[in-house]
């Protein structure tokens, strides 16, 4: 609507020049306030919702029959549930990375995608958190994982990484929610002030807490926002490190290796950025957000994918090299024999193709600038990183120390139904979010308008007063 008045998009812009405070507010706010319900929204929501129903049905069946409906059995006691858990939580990490780390690094290209990325984090963590709980066998007793004075006189086993996981994931979910909500408060106030419908005004008004943009409030707000970013950054690293320790603190060959924490974190960011690209590319096309999510954003995402993909490759290389050098027969068997040449070799080879070989095309600019190709590659990486967790979980377990207990593992239809079901949960939440909340931070876009418009003659300043 405003595009005709705006200047053409320069190649490296993170915001189309010519936007004003009013125009960005209007454009983003109207997505929520003015735009009517559209058929394509209903189609997307409907697909998500029907998959969500699949999830509920599979979970209900699981509650009734127990984990026997899944493919897990001795010796593979960790199957899809753990694979999906790690996959989802990794996807969540990109959101925090974009919103927190890029904020600390003063990368202004984060501004237009951070809200969306944070929402993605929340929804991915919701999907991730579900799997360990469903995997418990008696999910209704999940609260046994928490430290509270119970009639059993027991406390959680603090030496177990699985308990660290409980704390890490729940802290992560809480902090992500707080970070997201604090970022939303000024935007909720904007929506409150712009909504015409009385009930919408009231609804946004309640959650805006009466925000009125006072200078003193902004002063505290920026401090807290920077501090939350500062806290979220090591938190994200710790969460996936703890996930890595779930494996590494054990003694299983192929799991017990010191490089796991950083290499899992890199893998998480790798798959997370792929997921951001998978979602952002159709979203900006459907919702006309190309002014805000520009080609520059996509190119940067490709660079991050390339970098983190290389770290993952470094991890693979070090694992294999140290297995050879350390000469532990079990370690050697898993890493140099069973994974590349064993019964799951095809999975391992596909993983290598998707995670190590394919992303190397991002060295070339044409690959980072072709939207269709980026989207295709993002799917490839998503698949590759799912397979990585599958390889790690299954190939270490299915042939354990005792050859007589070797067996094969395959997911059952309920494993797949639960997995696709969480994709439905994610999609449903995402479509609700798109409909009811601003997908781009309006307040921060106004700041970006201000900064890009006043580039000259302004002293260099760093945002916030946090360190």
């Amino acid at each position, binding site marked *: 609507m405003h595009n005709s008045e705006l200047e053409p998009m320069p190649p490296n812009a993170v915001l189309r020049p010519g936007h004003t405070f009013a125009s960005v507010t209007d454009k983003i706010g109207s997505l929520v306030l003015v735009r009517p319900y559209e058929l394509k929204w209903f189609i997307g929501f409907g697909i998500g919702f029907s998959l969500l129903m699949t999830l509920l049905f599979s979970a209900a069946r699981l509650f009734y029959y127990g984990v026997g409906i899944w493919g897990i059995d001795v010796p593979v006691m960790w199957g899809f549930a753990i694979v999906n858990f790690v996959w989802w939580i990794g996807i969540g990490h990109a959101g925090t990375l974009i919103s927190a780390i890029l904020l600390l690094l003063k990368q202004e290209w984060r501004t237009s995608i951070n809200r969306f990325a944070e929402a993605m984090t929340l929804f991915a963590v919701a999907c991730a958190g579900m799997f360990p709980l469903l995997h418990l066998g008696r999910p209704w007793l999940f609260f046994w994982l928490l430290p509270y004075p119970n009639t059993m006189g027991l406390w959680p086993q603090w030496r177990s990484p699985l308990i660290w996981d409980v704390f890490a994931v729940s802290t992560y979910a*809480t902090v992500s929610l707080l970070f997201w909500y604090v970022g939303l408060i000024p935007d909720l106030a904007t929506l409150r002030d712009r909504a015409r419908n009385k009930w919408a005004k009231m609804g946004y*008004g309640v959650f805006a807490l009466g925000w009125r943009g006072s200078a003193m*409030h902004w002063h505290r707000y920026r401090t807290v926002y920077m501090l939350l970013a500062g806290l979220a950054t090591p938190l994200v690293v710790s969460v996936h490190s703890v996930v890595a320790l779930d494996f590494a603190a054990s003694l299983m060959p192929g799991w017990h290796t010191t490089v796991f924490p950083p290499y899992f974190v890199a893998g998480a960011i790798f798959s997370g950025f792929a997921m951001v690209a998978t979602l952002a590319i159709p979203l900006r096309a459907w919702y006309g957000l190309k002014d805000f999510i520009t080609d520059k954003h996509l190119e940067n995402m490709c660079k991050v994918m390339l970098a983190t993909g290389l770290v993952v490759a470094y991890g693979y290389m070090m694992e294999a090299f140290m297995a050879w050098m350390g000469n532990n027969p079990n370690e050697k068997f898993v890493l140099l024999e069973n994974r590349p040449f064993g019964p799951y070799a095809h999975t391992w080879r596909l993983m290598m193709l998707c995670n190590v070989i394919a992303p190397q095309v991002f060295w070339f600019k044409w690959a980072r600038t072709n939207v269709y190709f980026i989207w295709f590659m993002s799917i490839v990486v998503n698949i590759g990183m799912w397979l990585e967790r599958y390889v790690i979980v299954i190939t270490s377990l299915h042939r354990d120390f005792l050859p007589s207990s070797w067996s094969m593992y395959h997911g059952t239809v309920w494993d797949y139904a639960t997995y696709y079901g969480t994709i439905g949960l994610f999609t449903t939440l995402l479509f609700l979010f798109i409909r009811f909340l601003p997908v781009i931070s309006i307040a921060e876009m106004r700041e970006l308008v201000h900064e890009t418009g006043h580039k000259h003659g302004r002293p260099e300043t760093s945002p916030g007063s946090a360190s």
Partner: protein
Amino acid sequence: MTHHETEAETVYGIMAEFEHEEDVLEAAEAAYARGYRAMDAFSPHPVEGLAEAIGFHKNRVALVVLLGGLTGGLSGFFMQWYTAAVEYPFDVGGRPYFSWPAFIPITFEMTVLFAAISGVVGLILLNGLPRPYHPAFNAANFATASTDGFFLCIQSDDPMFEAEAVQAFLTEFEPKSLSVVPL
């Protein structure tokens, strides 16, 4: 002085609306230099230096976050030490009861959790929120304070407050609009 008192009972302050953030910054600095203290400025996004211009320099939320983080970390570590080494000492794989290396991850998570929660709670409480009703919302055009309007309000509880003088003072800065905000 009776005139002043009645005003203080019915008027929240005088609100001036500006189009650019430089203008509100200038007006705020001038008002502070003139001696006004009870005032507030409103903007749709954080304006560098605006809080300082109205005389607000240090906020205590960073301290709140630090204290929250320390509380969380210490209580997290204490909880693990007490339950694993004192309350129910329990041998797992020959590890010591006080397995401090294994207590570090949860100590870290608790630090972050408490720091983040105290930061957000501190932000909301120190800002006096939730406050869905506020006299400032009575000002003309105040809805634009969340879009592209910049406002400066000199409040009636300032000892120097006199409606005419304040209005005359604010008019010097050529505000887009000027309104008396009822309480």
